[in-house]
C-alpha cells in the first residue's frame, strides 16, 4: 500500500535531505531503518529537563520498547505474534512455513498447442516437530504451483466441512493485467505464504493429511476426491463406481462434487422448505446458534464499515504527510533563494527561520510516513477478520447444505414409502399377486435400505458439522477478543508515540522562532 508513494516522491525527498539540514541526525538517507533513527533522535530530544510532559508512561523507553518490537515484526513476518509463533499453547509443537523463490517453468506439452504455456512454481520450506511429519525437527522443501494450492483448498473444503477454513488467495486474473509480472508473482508469493501460515495456525487443519501431503510429498498433488456417500446415493447408484475410482475428469468445480441431479433434488427440497405449506421433516433447532449467527451477520456488516473508514483514515494520514513534505520542500527552496540573494541582515535572519521551518516540516513528514506504515500493519487485522468472516459463512453454508441433504433424503424416504404403499394397495386388488408389482416393491425396499443408510450418514455428517461450528465459534470468540484488543492497543500506542515525537519537533521549532 505504501510502495507506490515511495517511488514517486523519492527523488524530492533525497533533494530535501541533502539541501536542508546541517544537523547530523538528518543527513541520513531514507534507506536507513526509519524506526531506529527516529527513535534514537527522539531520545536525544527528550533529554531536556523542562519536561512538562508528565506522561503516564515514560515516552522514550516506552516508545522505544514498542518500536523495537514493531521493528522485529517488520523483518519478515507480518503476522500477529499469536499467529507467527504457530505453536499450540498446550505444547511446544511448531510448524513454520515459508514461501520463496518463484521460478518460471514450462508446461510439458501433452496438448495439441505447440510451444506450451509457462507457469510459476514456488519453493515451500517447512520446519516442524509435529508427529505427523515424521518426528522432531524435520525440515523439508518442495515446489508447488498455484494450481496445487487451489486443489489443496478444495480438498480441505470437502474434508473439513463446518470448520472456519482460511480462504485461499484469489486467482485474480484482472489484477495481473494491471501490474507487471514480477509484481504479480511477488504479491502472490506473499499471499501464498500468508495462506499456508494461516492453515498451519488452525488447530485442526495443521494436522490434516491434505496439508501434510501438500507440504511434504513431492510430485503431482495426488489428493483424491473424498467419497461422499450421500451424494452418490442421491445421484443414483450408477455413478458410484466412477466416484470410487476417483475419476478426476469429472466436475471439479463446487465443493463436494455437486452435480446436476443432486443439485436439482436439493433445490426442489429447498423450494419446498421455503414455499411449501408443510414444515420440512428436519429443521435447524439450535436457537443459540441462530442468535449467534445473526450477531455475526451484524458484526460482519460493522466490521466491513470500520475497514472502509480505516482505509480512508490511512489515506488521510498519507496525504497530510505528503503535503507536509511538500511544504518543507517549498521552504527549502525559499531558504536557498533568500540566502543566495541576501542583501540585508534581516533577510538572513528570515532565511534562518525558514530553514528551521523546513527542517521541522521534513521531519514531521517523515514521522507521518512511519506512523502510517505502522497504522496499516495494525488495522490490517480488520481485513484479516473480513477474510475470517468469509470462512465463517462458508462453514455455516456447509451446515445448511448438510441439513438440506438430510431433508432431501428424508423426503426421498417418505416418497419411497408412499410409492410402496400405493403399489401394495394396487397389487392387493389382483388375485394371486402381481408379479411385476411385487418385483417393483422389492426393488423399492432395497432402495429404501440404501437410502436409509445414506440418511444415517447424512445425519452423522450434519451433527459433526454442527459440532465443528460450535467449537470453531468458541475459538473465534476467544481469538477475536485477543486479536482485537491487541490491535486496539497497538493502534493507540502507535498514535500516541508518534504524536509525542511530532510534538518534540514542533516544540523545537517554537523555541527557535521565539524572538521576543
Amino acid at each position, binding site marked *: 500500500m505504501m510502495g507506490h508513494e515511495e517511488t514517486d516522491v523519492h527523488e524530492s525527498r533525497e533533494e530535501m535531505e541533502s539541501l536542508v539540514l546541517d544537523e547530523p541526525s538528518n543527513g541520513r538517507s531514507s534507506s536507513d531503518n526509519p524506526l531506529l533513527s527516529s527513535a534514537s533522535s527522539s531520545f536525544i530530544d527528550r533529554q531536556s529537563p523542562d519536561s512538562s*510532559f508528565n*506522561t*503516564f*508512561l515514560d515516552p522514550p523507553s516506552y516508545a522505544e520498547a514498542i518500536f523495537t518490537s514493531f521493528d522485529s515484526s517488520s523483518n519478515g513476518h507480518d503476522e500477529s505474534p499469536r499467529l507467527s509463533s504457530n505453536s499450540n499453547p498446550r505444547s511446544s509443537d511448531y510448524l513454520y512455513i515459508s514461501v520463496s523463490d518463484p521460478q518460471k517453468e514450462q508446461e510439458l506439452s501433452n496438448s495439441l498447442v505447440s510451444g506450451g504455456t509457462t507457469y510459476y512454481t514456488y519453493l515451500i520450506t517447512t520446519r516442524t516437530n509435529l508427529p505427523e511429519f515424521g518426528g522432531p525437527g524435520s525440515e523439508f522443501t518442495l515446489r508447488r504451483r498455484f494450481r496445487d494450492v487451489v486443489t489443496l483448498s478444495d480438498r480441505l473444503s470437502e474434508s473439513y466441512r463446518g470448520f472456519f477454513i482460511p480462504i485461499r488467495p484469489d486467482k485474480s486474473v484482472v489484477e495481473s493485467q494491471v501490474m507487471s509480472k514480477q509484481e504479480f508473482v511477488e504479491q502472490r508469493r506473499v499471499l501464498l505464504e500468508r495462506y499456508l501460515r494461516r492453515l498451519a495456525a488452525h488447530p485442526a487443519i495443521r494436522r490434516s493429511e491434505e496439508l501434510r501431503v501438500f507440504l511434504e510429498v513431492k510430485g503431482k498433488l495426488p489428493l483424491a476426491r473424498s467419497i461422499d456417500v450421500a451424494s452418490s446415493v442421491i445421484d443414483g447408484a450408477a455413478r458410484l463406481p466412477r466416484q470410487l475410482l476417483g475419476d478426476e475428469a469429472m466436475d471439479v468445480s463446487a465443493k463436494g462434487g455437486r452435480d446436476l441431479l443432486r443439485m436439482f433434488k436439493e433445490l426442489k427440497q429447498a423450494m419446498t422448505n421455503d414455499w411449501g405449506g408443510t414444515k420440512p421433516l428436519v429443521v435447524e433447532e439450535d436457537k443459540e446458534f441462530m442468535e449467534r449467527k445473526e*450477531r455475526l451477520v*451484524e*458484526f460482519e456488516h*460493522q*466490521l466491513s*464499515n*470500520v475497514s472502509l*473508514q*480505516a482505509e*480512508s*483514515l490511512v*489515506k*488521510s*494520514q498519507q*496525504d*497530510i504527510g505528503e*503535503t*507536509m513534505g*511538500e*511544504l518543507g520542500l*517549498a521552504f527549502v*527552496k*525559499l531558504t536557498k533563494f533568500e540566502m543566495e*540573494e541576501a*542583501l*540585508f541582515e*534581516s*533577510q538572513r*535572519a*528570515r532565511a534562518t*527561520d*525558514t530553514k*528551521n*521551518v523546513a527542517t*521541522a516540516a521534513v521531519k514531521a513528514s517523515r514521522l507521518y510516513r512511519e506512523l502510517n506504515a505502522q497504522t496499516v500493519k495494525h488495522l490490517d487485522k480488520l481485513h484479516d477478520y473480513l477474510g475470517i468472516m468469509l470462512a465463517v459463512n462458508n462453514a455455516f453454508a456447509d451446515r445448511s447444505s448438510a441439513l438440506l441433504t438430510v431433508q432431501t433424503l428424508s423426503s426421498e424416504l417418505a416418497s419411497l414409502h408412499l410409492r410402496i404403499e400405493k403399489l401394495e394397495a394396487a397389487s392387493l386388488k389382483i388375485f394371486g399377486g402381481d408379479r411385476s408389482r411385487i418385483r417393483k416393491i422389492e426393488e423399492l425396499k432395497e432402495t429404501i435400505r440404501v437410502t436409509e443408510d445414506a440418511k444415517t450418514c447424512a445425519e452423522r455428517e450434519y451433527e459433526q458439522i454442527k459440532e465443528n461450528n460450535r467449537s470453531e465459534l468458541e475459538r473465534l470468540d476467544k481469538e*477475536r*477478543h485477543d486479536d*482485537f*484488543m491487541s490491535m*486496539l*492497543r497497538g493502534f*493507540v*500506542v502507535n498514535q*500516541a508515540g508518534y*504524536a*509525542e515525537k*511530532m*510534538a518534540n519537533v*514542533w*516544540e523545537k*521549532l*517554537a523555541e*527557535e*522562532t*521565539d*524572538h521576543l
Partner: protein
Amino acid sequence: MITTLMEQQRSVTASSQSPRSPSSQPYLSVSVTDPVKLGNGVQAYVSYRVITRQTNLPEYQGPEKIVIRRYSDFIWLRDRLFEKYKGIFIPPLPEKSAVEKFRFSAEFIEMRRQALDIFVNRVASHHELQQSEDLRTFLQADEETMERLRSQETGIFKKKPSDFMQIFKDVQSKVSDVVLGKEKPVEESNPEYEKLKHYIFELENHLAEAQKHAYRLVKRHRELGQSLSDFGKAVKLLGACEGNSLGMAFSELGAKAETLSVKLQKEAHQILMNFEEPLKDYVRAVQSIKATIAERANAFRRHCELAETIKLKEINLNKLSLIRSDRVGEAEMEYNELKAESDEATQTFETIVRLMNEEIVCFQEQKTLDMGTAFHQFAKGQARLANGIADAWRSLLPKLESCSSS
C-alpha cells in the same frame, strides 16, 4: 473580538516604528469590525465598521469617529494612495472573491475583515501615508460622500487590473530581456536595481508555492479530522454489536477519535489564520512592490522621453533664433513649458528611486518580523495539537488494560 495573530503583529509593527517614546511619535490606530451583510441577491455586499481609535494627530482630534465602509471603499483608498504616493509600497488588499459560493462564508468574511484591518493600520502607521488626505476622507467622511467619491472613479482606475497586467508583462519581459542580454530602449541600466527586480519576481514565485502548500495543509487537517470522525463512529458501532469488554474498548476508542477530530478542525482554522494568511499577505505585498516597479518604469520612460524631446526642441530653438525667425517667441514658450514638465518628470522619477530605497529596507525588516511571528504561531499550534493527540491516546491505555484483563 478575538485578538488575532495579525493584530498582535500590528502592535509589534507600531513599536518597531517608534523606537523612542510612543507618545512623541505620531500614531493612528484603527479597527475594522462587525461585518454585516447588506442588500439582496446579486447586489448583496458586506459592510464593515471602521473605528478610528487612538490618535495624537491634530487632523483627527475630536470624538472617536465611526464610519461604515465596504470593500470597494478600501479599493478606492488603495488606488488613490497608489496614484499619489509613487515609490512607496502601498500595503496590499485582500483579493476579490472569485468564487461566488464562498463570498459570504463566515470564514471568508473573517479573513477579509482581518486583512482589511491590517491594511488600514499599515497605512495609518506609515509616516508618509498617514498624512494622506484621502486617508482622512476614508476614515471620517460620511457614507454619501464616500459613495459619491467611489463612483466618481474614472476610467484609469477602472482599467487598472488589465493595465497592471500589461505593465507587469512589460516589466517582466524587460527583466528577462536584460537577463538574456537583449538590449531594449528606455530602460534603467542600474545593475543593483536589476538585481532587486529579479529578486522581487523570483520571491513571488517561491512565496506563492509555499502559500499553496500551506493552504493544502489546512485542507489536509480538515480531511484527517473528518476521517478520524468517521472512523470513530464506525468503531463505536462495531463496539455496540460486540458487547462485553471488547465492545467497551471499541466504544472508548471511537469516542476518543471523535474528540481528536474536533481538535484537528480547530487547528486547521488556526493554521489558516496564523500561517497561511500571513504567507498570502506576504505574496500580496510583493505584488504591490511589482506595481511600484511598474510605476518607476513608467516614470523613467517619461523622464527619458521628455529629455529626448527637450533636446530636439533646444536644437530647433537655436536654429530658429539663428535665422531670427518670428516663431522664436512661440518656440521659446513651448520650450519653457516642456522644460518644466521634463524637470517635473525627472523629479518624480528621482523621488520614486529614493523612496524605494528606503521602503525596501523597511520591507525586509518588517517581513522578517511578520514571518517570525507566523512561524512561531504555527509551531506552537502544531505542538499543541500533537500534545493533545498524544495525551488523548495515552489516557485511553489504562482503560484498554482493564478491558483486556476482564
